[in-house]
C-alpha cells in the first residue's frame, strides 16, 4: 500500500489533500496530515470490556495501537473482513488509532470552495462525525471530523489518566 505522506510536503500543502475510503455506499475523506500509514487487516487482540466499535489492539512494528471499526462506530451493519479491508492508522493530538474501513480509494485534492458545511439535523447520527461535505466531479465526499470521532468516552478517559 502506498504511504500517502511524502517527506517533501509542508503541513500547509497537506491541508487540502484527503484520503478517501468507503464504508458501504458512502465515501468518506480524512485529512492526509493525520494519516500515518495504511495497512492490511491483521489479527486483532481482543481487550475485554471495551465498547463494541473498539475491536481491540494490534502490534504495529512494536507499537501497540487500538483499532476502531468505523462501520460499527457509525452504527452500520457489521460486515466480515475480507482482503480489501484496510486499517488506516491516524495520529491525532498524540493519540494513535487504527480505523478499520471497507476499502481505501485514493488521495484527492479538495479546495476550500468545494467544501460546504454539513446539514444540521436531518440525517441525524453520523452528522456528529462529519466536518463538511466535499464535491469532486460528481462524487460527494463526507469529510471526517477527527475531533468528534475520537471524542465521547474515549478522550474523557484519556484526560482522566493524564
Amino acid at each position: 500500500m502506498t504511504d500517502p505522506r511524502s517527506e517533501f510536503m509542508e503541513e500547509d500543502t497537506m491541508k487540502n489533500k484527503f484520503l478517501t475510503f468507503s464504508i458501504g455506499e458512502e465515501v468518506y475523506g480524512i485529512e492526509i496530515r493525520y494519516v500515518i500509514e495504511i495497512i492490511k487487516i491483521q489479527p486483532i487482540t481482543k481487550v475485554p470490556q471495551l465498547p463494541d466499535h473498539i475491536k481491540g489492539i494490534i502490534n504495529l512494528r512494536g507499537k501497540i495501537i487500538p483499532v476502531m471499526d468505523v462501520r460499527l462506530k457509525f452504527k452500520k451493519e457489521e460486515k466480515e473482513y475480507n482482503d480489501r479491508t484496510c486499517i488506516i492508522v491516524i495520529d491525532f493530538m498524540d493519540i494513535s488509532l487504527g480505523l478499520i474501513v471497507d476499502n481505501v480509494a485514493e488521495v484527492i485534492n479538495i479546495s476550500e470552495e468545494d467544501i460546504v458545511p454539513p446539514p444540521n439535523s436531518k440525517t441525524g447520527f453520523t452528522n456528529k462525525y462529519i466536518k463538511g461535505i466535499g464535491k469532486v466531479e460528481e462524487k460527494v465526499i463526507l469529510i471526517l471530523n477527527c475531533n468528534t470521532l475520537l471524542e465521547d468516552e474515549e478522550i474523557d478517559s484519556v484526560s482522566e489518566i493524564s
Partner: protein
Amino acid sequence: MKENKNDPLLEMFIFETNELIKQLENMIIEIDKNENFTKEDINEIFRIMHSIKGSSAMMEFNNISNLAHNVEELFHYIRENEPIIDNHSELCDIVLESIDFLVTEVQNISKDEKDIQDSSALIKKINNFLNDIKENRLKKNGFSVVIYFEEGCQMENMRAFFIINELKKSADIIGYYPADIEDSNSIDSIRENGFKINFYINQDKENTKNLINSFPFIKSSNIKVLQDEEFEKKEALNSINKQNNINNKQFVKNLNQNVISVNLQKLDTLMNLVGELVISESMVINNPEVTKLQIDNFEKASRQLVKVTKDIQDIVMSLRMIPVSFAFSPVNRIVRDMGKKMNKKINLNIVGQETEVDKNIIEHLNDPLIHLVRNAIDHGLESQEERLKKGKDPVGTITLEAKNIGSDVAISIRDDGRGLDRKRIEEKALKNGLIEEIDESLSDKEVYSYIMLPGFSTTDTISEYSGRGVGMDIVSKNIQKVGGKVIINSEKGKGTEILIKIPLTLAIMDGMIVRIGKSRFVIPINYIRRSFIPNEKDIIHDSVNNYEMMLVRGECYPLIRLDNIFDIKSDKEKITDGIIILVENEFGGVCLWTDSLEGKQQIVVKSLPHYIKKQVEIAGCTLLGDGSISLILDIENIISEKGGDKSD
C-alpha cells in the same frame, strides 16, 4: 506545538540555567542555616549570576540578564570590599526572591512568554540593600572585648548568653569564645580566661566600653580595637554543621562530574529497541525447527547471546535511574520558608538520597512529596509552645528516608508531631459523607487511609498551604499511576509516618503464558505459588452467592474462571480438563482457572494505549515471540477485588 520547543539552543539554555539556579538555591539554604556567607560562597554566587547574565543576554532574555546583572553587582561589591553584613537573613531572602523570579521567568520562556514579569521592585530592593551595606561600612567599628565576671556569681555561661543576646541588639557579633556557652562545661573556661566577644558596632571605643560595663555581674573588661586578621570566621563555631554541609556538597559535586545530559527520547527509543531485541532473541532461540535439531554449538552460542543481551538490558534500564535526591531537593526550601512563616523550628533529616529510581517515577514523586512535607509542617508539627508544654523538643524533626526493599523502593516522610486522631478522622469522614457509618472493627491503618479520600479535610481553617481537601487524594492517585501505594502509620501525640512504596521498574519481567480459548494471557511469575490439575471434589460451589472456592492444602481460596471474567470461550469442556494456578501476595490469594500453560518467558511490558479505558484486571500487554499481543493480568488488583483474606 511551539516551534522553539525543539530548538536545541533554547533547550540547552533552559537546562543549564535551571541547573545553576538549583545549585544556588541549595547553597543559599545552607548559608541561611549557618548564618554566614564565606568567601567561597560569595565567589560562587557571583560566578553563577555572571554566567546567567551572560547566557541570557546572548539569548536576549532581558528580564533575566537585567536581574542577574544587579545581583552580580551586589556580590561583586561584597567580594571586593568585604563589608559587614548585618542581616544575613535579609540577603538570603533577596537571593531567594531573585531565584523565584528567575525560575518563573525560565518557565515563561519555555511557554514562549518572555519578559512578562516586572522586576523593578526586586531590583530596587537589591540596590537598597547594596546602598545600606555601603553606608554601614563607613560607620562601624570593630572591637574585641574580654569580660571577667564577678567571683561567685555562678552560671557564668548563662550570664554570657544574656550578654550576647543584649549585645546583638546594637552590634553585629562576629564571634565569641568559648563558643558553646549552652554547655555548662564552659563555665570553668569563662572563669579562668574570661569571656571573649568580637563585634562591630556603631559607636566609638568609650561608649562601647560603657555599654559593656553596664551589663550585670561584670567585674572588669578589656576592650581592644579589632584587627582584621583576628577571629575572621564564625566557621570554627559552627564546625559541626559545616561537616555535614561539606558532605552534602561533596555528594552534589560528585553527581555533576562525569555526567552527560542525554535527550530522554533517545533513551526511550533505546529501551524500546532493547525490548525488541529480547523478543527477537527469543524468536531465534526458541524456534521449534532449530530446537528440534539439538546442535551443541548452537546451544552454546545462544547461551552466550542470552547472557550478553541480559547485560545490555540491565545497563539500559539503569540509564533511566537517577537518585531520589532530585525529588528531595525542593523540600529544603519548603522547610525553610514554611518554618519561617509559621514560626516553627524544624530540623530536616534526609536519609538515603542516593537510592535510585526510574526518572519517570521521580516526576510523579515531586508533587506528592511537597504536599506531604507541607502537611507534616502545617498539621503534624505543633507550635514551639505546645511542644514545650508536652515535654517535647521545641525543634520539630521531619525525616525523609528512601531505601530499597526487595523489588520496591520505599520512601517515608516521618514527623514527630501530634500524630493522627482516629476519632476525628472518622467523624470528619462521616460528616463529609465519605463513609456511611463508623466501623469499630477497622484497624487504625484502615481509618487513617480515609484522609486520602477526595474531599476530606480535618482542618477547620484552610491555611495557605493545605487543608483544601484536594491534596491527599491527588497524592494517592499520583502514586498509583506509577504502580505504587501509600501506607499511613501514626501514633497520637508521637508523630505520623507516610510510607510510599513504588515498584522499581515494570519494564521487563518473567511471566508465565497461559491460554484460554484462542487468547493468551501472561501471569507475572513472582505471584505464582503452585499450578495443578483440579479435582472435582476440591471445588466448593456457593450457589447462593454464585461463588466458587477451592481447597488447597487445607486453605480456602476463591476460584476465578478467567474465561468468565474476560468473556472468552474456553476450549475445555470440564473444569478438570484445565489447569489451576494459585497466585498469592501479602494480602491474600486466588485460584485462576485456565485451559493450559504455554511456558515461561521473559516479557517486555508495554502499557495499553491511553485511548483504551483501563480495565482493572489488566496491567498491560506484551508482544510474544510470534508477534502476537498478549494481555498481562494485574494480579494485585485481582486479589484485592476477589481474593480471600489471608487472615481468615
